[in-house]
């Protein structure tokens, strides 16, 4: 899993059945300190995350398929949490939801 920040949304009419009625979000990947690392990823949502929120992203297919209940779905990247606190050694705790 890794940290991401929701920066955008994607609307798609034609897609794999596993994405039907599922929100797709554009995420900036974050370093543990909270800065964007320059890359991005598209992810399906399972926790009703919103723009600007720091989220926990699962990037593993078996787990993702289990969460969405689709054993043969073409899905790998899924938002599975909204991050409240990050504690890193030698740094002040970071509370992403309070910063915003």
């Amino acid at each position: 899993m890794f940290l991401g920040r929701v920066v955008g949304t994607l609307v798609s009419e034609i897609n794999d059945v596993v994405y039907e009625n599922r929100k797709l979000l554009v995420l900036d990947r974050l370093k543990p300190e909270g800065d964007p690392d320059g890359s991005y990823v598209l992810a399906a949502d399972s926790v009703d995350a919103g723009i600007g929120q720091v989220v926990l992203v699962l990037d593993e297919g078996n787990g993702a398929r289990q969460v969405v209940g689709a054993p043969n779905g073409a899905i790998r990247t899924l938002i599975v949490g909204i991050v409240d606190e990050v504690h890193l050694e030698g740094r002040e705790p970071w509370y992403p939801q309070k910063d915003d």
Partner: protein
Amino acid sequence: MKLGRVIGTLVASVKYQGLEGVKLLIIQPLDKNLKPMNQHRIAADGTAMAGPGELIYYEESREAALACPVKFVPVDTAIVGLVDELMVQGREVWSKGKE
């Protein structure tokens, strides 16, 4: 998943069994502002609806094969959807009606 643009098609007359009828497309991976990044990929079209010029999103690794009609096929990149509208940082980066 990542964004990509279909830039071409490809025909292979000899393919692994299970891949008959699966359309192969050449895609250019894009960043979230639709600037090209990295090298092209050959992708199976899991939607069977994509064509040259189309803005798509694709999945890589084992999950790509799951987008194909036969689930145990040697495919590492597959188109899983077509983009109708893309908003990033409050800005409309792409809208199908306005292309």
